[in-house]
């Protein structure tokens, strides 16, 4: 299976979490320990085994394409950290 090392800085970047140097060290060690435990799965012969994503029968659920009541826009936007009119406001994404 894979090594017990985990590049915490790279993974944190993917996960969009800023970490302190102390967290990088601590999480690196703790997650390395956990990976050492989960590597035990390499002992199982899973070559011919299908993967399970969902244990009970799953099927596509459809509904009629009709207008139904939904959450009130004002109620939802009232919870926004920042809003502008009927929109969520975020920092500029595209440079000027």
């Amino acid at each position: 299976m894979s090594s017990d090392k985990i590049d915490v800085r790279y993974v944190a970047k993917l996960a969009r979490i800023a970490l302190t140097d102390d967290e990088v060290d601590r999480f690196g060690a703790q997650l390395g320990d956990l990976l050492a435990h989960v590597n035990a799965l390499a002992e199982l012969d899973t070559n011919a085994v299908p993967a399970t994503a969902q244990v009970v029968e799953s099927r596509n659920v459809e509904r009629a394409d009709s207008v139904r009541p939904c959450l009130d826009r004002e109620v939802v936007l009232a919870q926004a950290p920042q809003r502008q009119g009927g929109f969520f406001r975020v920092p500029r994404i595209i440079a000027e």
Partner: protein
Amino acid sequence: MENGIIERNAADIARDVNAGKLSAAEVIEATLGQVDAVDSRVGAYLTVVHDLARERAAAVDARVRAGERLPLAGVPIAVKDNMCLTGTRTTCASKILERWTAPYTATAVARMLEAGCVPVGKTNLDEFAMGSSCENSALGVTRNPYDLSRVPGGSSGGSAAAVAAREAAIGLGSDTGGSIREPGAFCNLVGFKPTYGRVSRYGLIAFASSLDQIGPLTRTVEDAALAYDAMGGYDPMDATSIDRPLEPTAQALRADLHGLRVGIVREFGTKELGADLDAAYVRAYHDLEALGAQLVEVSLPTADYGLATYYLIAPAECSSNLSRFDGVRYGLRVEGDDVQSMYEKTRAAGFGPEVKRRILIGTHALSTGYYDAYYVRAQKARTLIARDFEKAFAGCDLIACPAASSAAFSFNAKSDPYSMYMMDYYTIPMSLAGLPALSVPCGWVTPPGGVEPMPLGLQLCAPLFAESLLLGAAHAFERATMHAQKHAPLTARTRA
């Protein structure tokens, strides 16, 4: 009179409220009085909804006066704070949602209210339901009502503590790898996780979507059955909700176990749990036999890989589910120089260490180069574990084993994350297989260094959809042994 009311089980309350002998208003006043008296010590609730509770109680009394008969008339319920209730703060015990108010109500909660329940408040949990002691809450400390120096279990520890301390008759919990069953065992309660998909997850803030399941924490099996009958069943708002009829379980409670084969798992020896626990579980198995069950040995050879499987699948799903907390639409935002830095600072400030660890491990397991080695392999192991249960159930009707690896432990006793994960060794395999399982009180031990006797839980597990059989058998065990009655919580003893 007040003390009398709070000691009563849901079934008794509903019967008397329906008969007009007791009002929902009286019940909720007595319950709120108990919350005032003990919750500063227990810490079960993050939010108490006094006004809504009184309003809902009055509505229940009006419905009963109008001639309606409600299966849970006037029953006070504690709702884990990862389930939405319109107009009420819903935090997941996380700083990232500390000030978020739910704009809609979870289906399970709505069905309980429709059945006559009255909400007392929202209860503490390990942040985003990740933990086994409630110590991962960012918003409060919950203590075990049987020994305030010990944890209530988790992640549904607030709901468990509330019901144990008589601050509610029913607690709603969610169970991903044992988060109802373990706190149930720690707090001398019945903790019931139904088959995956039996109770709608709509309005339950997602942790690991293929595993999360809502269920009740109660002081009797009968109450668990009534709660399940009220909240279970198909919901078009949850795409994984199962569309098949729900047979009422409250009518399936049994007096004995004649004709049932109960599987004892060869790989789940109890000797390594210590002499006291070993003796308690050996006695519990004997009690099952004395009730007429035939004990048979079954084997779950891959169950030992449950923890490893779970700690890839659950974090992978959590890393995806929790990506929605980004400071844009709701919850905390910490400003940054650009949008990327806003995301990173918001999530750094909003999530606690355990949530960060799980997001990181899940992100790693799903990342390029590791996906097949970790995530897909874990999904294949999951298949093997589910097949083990299928084979075992070919030779038995139910499986019995411990509900947790120890009795409730002291605060800060499990500082290494993996030692905390080990608490769920016996509950995780059932979660991976989607099976219905519950914890029922089965004895008491005084842990080393402790002074108070602490409860233990026996886990019973049934095949998919066999909730009636499971609850029926647990009822017979509960009635024959009466373990739950042997000790009262400290909160009852210290109150005159």
